[in-house]
């Protein structure tokens, strides 16, 4: 991977982390969590762990859907 790609994907991970820490709305937190995973997945792929990447890409949406059932009952 070249340098610009690494910088932009790392920026996505960092922006997602600070956004999830700062934001108050639980739905916004889930969006930022999805952003962290989007930034981190190409680094897993780049090292050649493709089976782990497939497993993570299937498991992360399932965990988000399970978390949404808890967020449904959460009052702002």
């Amino acid at each position, binding site marked *: 991977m070249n340098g610009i790609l690494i910088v*932009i994907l790392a920026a996505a991970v960092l922006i997602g982390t600070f956004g999830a820490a700062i934001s108050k709305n639980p739905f916004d937190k889930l969006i930022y969590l999805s*952003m962290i995973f989007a930034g981190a997945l190409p680094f897993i792929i780049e090292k050649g762990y493709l089976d782990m990447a*497939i497993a993570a890409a299937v498991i*992360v949406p399932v965990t988000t859907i399970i978390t949404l059932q808890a967020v449904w009952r959460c009052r702002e």
Partner: protein
Amino acid sequence: MIPEITELSLPALICAVAALYSCIRIVLEKNTLRKLPFLNVLTFAVTGIIVLICPTPLGIAAACAYFIGSTLESNAIASTWAKRAEKEKKDAQEKPDGEAA
């Protein structure tokens, strides 16, 4: 063996610029529902980056799985948000009636 791309290719640069722009828009947008299309743009751009850095059959399978999973995730968040907003609206309509009665 995965071929390593070290020179800057134009398609990967375009995908990276789209990803950066959508990240900035997600942070700056106030409304939660308006963040979700930009999250979709980010995941599409990341799918393109994955395919470009690893053009093997298993890499394409990984990109496929990520594409389907992330779209499902965004749709689940959007539909839960819409259902909850509808329920809160209904509760707000019922509450003044209950107080009046």
